[in-house]
């Protein structure tokens, strides 16, 4: 497996939707290629960081204000 081939299936590797035969080829490639190993690990970490950190907080008071406005408009529309 080449780096280009690895990169083409990077998403499938991350999403763990890889056939077992290909998985062996990937493992062999990663043992030899430090660059691809870094790309895989840091891309995984990128996703994890975005998943675990809310970057657009919705403060409780804003949530309540919007929530009341939504329900008021829905009740009127009903």
């Amino acid at each position: 497996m080449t780096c280009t081939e690895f990169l083409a299936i990077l998403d499938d590797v991350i999403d763990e939707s890889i056939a077992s035969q290909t998985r062996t080829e990937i493992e062999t490639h990663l043992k030899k290629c430090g660059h691809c190993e870094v790309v895989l690990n840091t891309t995984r970490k990128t996703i994890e960081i975005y998943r675990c950190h809310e970057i657009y907080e919705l403060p409780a008071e804003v949530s309540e204000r919007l929530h009341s406005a939504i329900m008021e408009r829905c009740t009127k529309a009903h």
Partner: protein
Amino acid sequence: MSTIQSIAGQNEQHPDVALVEKVRSGDVSAYDALVRKYERQIFRIAQHITQNREDAEDVMQDAFVKAFEKLDQFQGNSKFYTWLVRIAVNESLMRLRKRRTGKMVSIDEDLQTEEGSVPRDFADWAPNPEQNYNQAELAEILRKTIQGLPPGFRVVFVLRDVDGLSTEETAETLGLSIPAVKSRLLRARLQLRERLSRYFHKKAAPLARENAREKRS
């Protein structure tokens, strides 16, 4: 995230469907539960697309009200959440269009860039690199980094990787083909990784932290 994934089997009814049925039969208060369940996700998606807090608040309101008014059109063959997201995405794009004085805005714009499609930075990251920053610094870095992506990449990344929708659901929600979602997701992930590398390198962290502080002050 966990709320989006269906926990019901194929023949079991999703809890949202029961709430939708209640609303349809005249119980407006049942809609309250649906709003509370999804308001944060809808706000987040609107904020990612519009990049403007005021617009995101308006989109959130309008999307929930529009969904309420159109509830009769909800078929139940897709999840309520993906149906709601589609409304929110359209409302967000309309809002962007208003800001740009009527210029057409689509989810397909600015996708010509080849940036990030091939990784260039191969330096490893520090272990748990996010711990080198306090919460406000980290949020600022993550916001600034994702804001640099074209909207069509941003929204695919957020739906797929942050919200946890499947590739098929993301495609259906955005009206894109499955290969288009896959291609955008890969490029979004790689571009974000490349841009975050400057903050999260083993050796770059202290310097990047200083830069982040300077920009905040």
